[in-house]
């Protein structure tokens, strides 16, 4: 068996495989819902209703999408240059850490001065966290997939250490959590009365900014060139290692903004369950968006909707919420296959 490129793909060829992938994902989820003894139509209906059925549901989905846009962008930027950053989770916590360090009274400034400083410092922290694996890759050729994955575990333990030590809230009844941010360090709501903070707007701005960097700057061009063919990029005089380091800085910074936005916009303090795997889910967000920064927004909204909807469905009829994770994993695997099949066919010899 081998793959054969299709010279002139028809409209059906380019649209059918992704459509079938979506239908198949829903079909598999339906079967699993039936295994759980539930009516699949009721389950799917409740997921949609829970994700977008009311103003409350919709706001919840937008809030959940916010960190996913940041981590999705982080992964999209890195994967485009074939820098396999699986460490968005650690970088997110680095951003959250800086936010509580600077935002609990250390800098007694007004919001307009304080928030940008915290955001920038958070980005810097995320960038630094990714710098170790990136330098190990560039200097020693150590595969960054494994190192970034391992750093996630190390960094979470480090956060745990801080939350039980120097960062522990003395008024926290013994729980491992940080002090709450001062009011000036909180991201305000976009519209009064609506539970949606400026982190969401910042995420949209970040997506556009990344798109501009990728499409309109030399760095963006170099990142794509390195991702497409490292040897050719090197031959063309592109400083491959420097580009990889810059990519890592940007990618780590974006993931850290997710931590900043979650702490300053939503939670108000740092705990060990700040992120239910936003860093890992960012990989799916980015892949379903085909690494396109603007499509990351839509992809994050879709995935956030599935999570929020599944939570609400699970509360209503007791099918485990892990159904959402299964749907995403299935969608990811089927979609990468479907996209390949829009351009290639498998032929038997």
């Amino acid at each position, binding site marked *: *068996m*081998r*793959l054969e490129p299709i010279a002139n793909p028809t409209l059906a060829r380019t649209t059918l495989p992704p459509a079938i992938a979506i239908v198949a994902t829903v079909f598999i989820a339906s079967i*699993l819902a039936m*295994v*759980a003894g539930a009516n699949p139509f009721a389950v799917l209906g409740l997921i949609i209703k829970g994700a977008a059925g009311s103003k409350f549901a919709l706001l919840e989905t937008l809030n959940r999408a916010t960190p996913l846009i940041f981590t999705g962008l982080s992964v999209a930027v890195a994967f485009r240059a074939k820098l*396999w950053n*699986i460490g968005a989770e650690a970088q997110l916590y680095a951003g959250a850490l800086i936010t509580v360090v600077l935002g609990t009274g250390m800098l007694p400034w007004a919001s307009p001065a304080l928030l940008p400083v915290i955001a920038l410092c958070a980005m810097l922290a995320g960038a630094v966290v990714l710098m170790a694996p990136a330098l*190990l890759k560039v200097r*020693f*050729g*150590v*595969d960054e*997939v*494994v*190192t970034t*994955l*391992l*750093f996630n*575990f*190390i960094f979470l*333990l*480090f956060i*745990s*250490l801080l939350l*039980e*030590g120097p960062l522990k809230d003395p008024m926290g009844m013994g729980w491992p959590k940080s002090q709450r941010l001062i009011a000036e360090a909180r991201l305000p709501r976009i519209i009064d009365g609506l539970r949606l903070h400026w982190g969401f707007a910042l995420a949209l701005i970040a997506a556009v900014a990344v798109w501009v960097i990728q499409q309109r700057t030399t760095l963006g061009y170099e990142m794509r060139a390195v991702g497409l063919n490292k040897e050719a990029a090197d031959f063309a005089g592109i400083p491959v290692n420097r580009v990889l380091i810059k990519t890592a800085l940007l990618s780590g910074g974006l993931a850290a903004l997710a931590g900043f936005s979650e702490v300053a916009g939503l939670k108000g303090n740092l705990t060990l369950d700040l992120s239910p795997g936003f860093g*890992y889910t960012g*990989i*799916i967000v980015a*892949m379903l968006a085909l690494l396109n920064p603007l499509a990351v927004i839509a992809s994050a909204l879709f995935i956030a909707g599935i999570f929020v909807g599944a939570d609400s469905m699970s509360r209503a009829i*007791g099918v*485990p919420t*892990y*159904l959402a*994770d*299964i749907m*995403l*994993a*299935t969608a*990811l*695997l089927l979609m*990468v*296959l479907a996209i*390949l099949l829009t351009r290639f066919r*498998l032929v038997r*010899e």
Partner: protein
Amino acid sequence: MDLFDILLSASFWTAAIRIASPLIFATLGELICERAGVLNLGIEGIMVAGAFAGWMAVYSGMGLWGGVAVAMLAGMMFGLIHSTLTVPFGLSQHVVGLGITLLATSLTYYAYRLALPEVTSPPKITAFKPYEIPVLSDLPLIGQALFSQTPLTYLAFVLVGLVSVVLYRTPLGLALRAAGENPSAVAAQGLSVTGLRMGAVIFGSGFMAVGGAFLTMSAFDSFFFEMVNGRGWICIALVVFGAWKPGKALLGAILFAAFDALQIRIQQTPLGANIPYQVFLMMPYLLSILALIAMSRRAEVPAALMVPFNKGER
């Protein structure tokens, strides 16, 4: 307790070998995949699935070895999905592997919640018991460590020898290694690169799942969320540390497990009590990264690792 007292105690080495056992299975599994040219990042999720499948099978009335077989089959099923996507279709091994880890983990948790709704502490099974091999287990120091383990640990050691023999002494092993070094040469011999690679990933994934099952059926006797806890990623580092050779990978796993057993013991000393426990928990991951750095210059990576093979394409 003195460091030497620890290192010379039989219980320390017994613990080290026990900790090493699941790593040996999973590292061998990953090694087989990578030797054939496929990076399998599904390892973490496949270990979770194996841990659950084996334990659940025994809990629902199967024998212990039946449970091991069920775990192996579960792993092979995920290996089949992984290899179908990465070998004939040549999709990104990074993306597919992470997708398999997510799929296997979430399917496992879903199945766990369905099988045992509303349980606060998971039920226990009667796990494998240590079996003392007569005479040999009376040897000083290594006797207890090597010959009073559970049957699954013995199986792990037997498997290292078996995989070595198959890889280096049989035509199949030669073809498998060639598929990871120079697939065109394999194809020129009239052999199927697709078949070899898929077979390697399927069997390798089965071994990973047995590694997971060791946790629920030998090291402990029940299933917890997050019980694999990054062991899969550590095994990927161990493959590199072992330079893609079964014997060296075995040594790496034991060395690694010895450090792990050592840190647990140091935690209990007066010195260790003053250090936050998180520092000790970080050690295995830090050690893996150090191992990767140490081996980075010397390791001979299979030349066609992560390179999809498309016949007739140059």
